[in-house]
């Protein structure tokens, strides 16, 4: 895969083009409309690299919509219009000449409901790799093993790689989806309530995994589970009806929020 369309997104100290100290993801005055209704209202937010940021807020507050802006998944919905700018590593990802496919290779995604393809476990991880030009069997094998180990799934599936992924349990399927996402080595992983359909034990494993992945990836996670946000995120953004109410270090949001609405929400008074 050649990187002709977009240079590497990361702000890297060794990268001569990079502006030292600038935030990794810069969202400035971003508004999103579904037809006539405004779903996101003038959001400005900066996210740092290799940090877990949690988006919290009641249903319909726009947190998932904002998450899906980061890999342009909203393109698939008709009548969506975006104003304002969203930059990753200094590049405006909403520009017309952005190659969405290249962007999505850099910004992976894990969905609320685990959605492995109806193929074998091996083929699920291999699919993204093949899309991005990994062809040789030995390379595929190595990266699939690496990804499954990265997603803490290898030991459970190494003897049944060629059986259908739909035969796995819910938690295993979600970890397979994470393996599939990290296999193509994105820089950012978006997670849309990744543990909401799982039991507490499977949830705990996913949370451990997120803390592990943080070392290598920038993670943005949408969650309804307040304790989960508190346990795994470094920064938290609280949204309410399309507005960003408060953004700051997770500890501060949960112990000493600046806004009354945030306090009411995290303490469970509404939502």
């Amino acid at each position: 895969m050649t990187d002709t369309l977009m240079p590497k997104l990361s702000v890297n100290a060794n990268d001569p083009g990079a502006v030292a100290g600038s935030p990794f993801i810069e969202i400035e005055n971003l508004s999103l409309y579904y037809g006539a209704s405004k779903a996101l209202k003038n959001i400005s937010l900066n996210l740092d690299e290799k940090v877990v940021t949690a988006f919290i807020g009641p249903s319909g507050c726009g947190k998932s919509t904002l998450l899906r802006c980061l890999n342009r998944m909203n393109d698939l919905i008709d009548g969506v219009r975006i104003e304002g700018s969203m930059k990753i590593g200094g590049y405006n990802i909403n520009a017309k000449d952005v190659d969405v496919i290249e962007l999505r290779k850099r910004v992976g995604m894990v969905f609320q409901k685990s959605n492995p393809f109806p193929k074998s476990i091996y083929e699920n991880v291999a699919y993204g790799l093949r899309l991005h030009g990994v062809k040789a069997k030995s390379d595929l094998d190595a990266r699939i093993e690496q990804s499954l180990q990265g997603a803490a799934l290898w030991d459970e599936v190494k003897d049944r790689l060629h059986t259908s992924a739909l035969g796995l349990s819910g938690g295993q399927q979600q970890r397979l989806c994470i393996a599939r996402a990290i296999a193509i080595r994105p820089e950012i992983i978006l997670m849309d309530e990744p543990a909401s359909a799982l039991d507490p034990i499977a949830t705990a494993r996913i949370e451990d995994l997120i803390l592990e992945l943080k070392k290598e990836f920038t993670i943005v996670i949408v969650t309804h589970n307040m304790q989960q946000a508190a346990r795994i995120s470094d920064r938290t953004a609280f949204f309410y009806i399309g507005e960003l109410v408060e953004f700051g270090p997770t500890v501060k949001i949960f112990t000493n929020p600046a806004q009354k609405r945030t306090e009411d929400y995290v303490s469970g008074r509404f939502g």
Partner: protein
Amino acid sequence: MGIHRGHQARPGEWLAEKLIFLISLSAIGMVLLIFLFVAREALPVFFGQTDTALIQPVIPTAELDRHSPAELQRYLELTPEQFTTMDKETIKTLMDVKIEALNDIPENFRNDPDAKINTTEWKYLLRPHQWSGYEKPERIWQPVGQIKKFNLIPLFVGTLKTTLIGLLFAVPLAVGAAIYVSQLARPRVRETVKPVIEMLSGIPSVVTGVFALIVMATVLQHIFGYQTRLNAFVAGIALGFAVIPVIFSIAEDALTSVPRAYTQAALALGASRWQTAWQIVLPAALPGVFAASVLGFGRAIGETMIVLMVCSASVMSWSIFDSARSITTTIAAEMAEAVNGGPHYRILFMLGALLFAATFVSNMIGDFVIHRFKNKLEGKR
């Protein structure tokens, strides 16, 4: 107070359930009855009870008493009831008539070896035969004339030729259109294209037949430059037009019902819309697409009018640019003129029964394959 069990608790629902059950049973019963009726008419062929030999062995009227009543009854081609109501004189007259009929056979057939054979025997139905006047052994379907030739193979070949050409033409087009409409097209385009293709199924096959006969035959001959203007190729393409809406409609439903989650997962991995449709959605919808093709096969093999109008010469040829006559066409064209209960009539019914069996078996195989597919996709063994 008591907890009632079964139908005592909700008699209305119980009654409705039983009623619906009976109605569904009656559908199965109908299909069974149709098959039994068709098969019954065809049974004499299977048991070798039909005879088309022009020159039959003759029992002289004087030898009436040397034969048993059963023999006479068979000889005079009467039912047992008819036979018992007849007195000796009537039987004698009938035997005379039989001998006279023999004299009515045209001169040139008297010494023809073909006039002595029963052409409804299996070897004549299936294997080539050296007919007098032909250069080499041939398979011929020619159910009229003094020597009736009933070889079924030209009809099977004709059916296969037209059906396969139709499917080869229709399946890629219909499935391609279904992929486009369900996965790639914008909603506005989808809402126009879908009903238009499905409207094709409302065109009477007579109209498609006329169009094929007058327009398509000429156009296709200009493009491909073959000899016979009306041939299996034209009929197959016209059949394809009749089959496309059937396959499209079901394949489109199957593709649309593939969970959006798969599409989203593929797109989020950086697949293009085309790659997603081709590599993820189509494989996931394969059982449905296969079912659509099986149904299209059933429609193509059962279609009568188009093939009847475009080409109907029963030549024995595997070339798609030669004419062809399908089984259904044969039944439709000849049933009205076949003598009720005669060998021709029986053989037409046998063709019907074979067609019935063929579609039944193809549906069974289709069902089996679909289940295998589904189980594999869902991770069951």
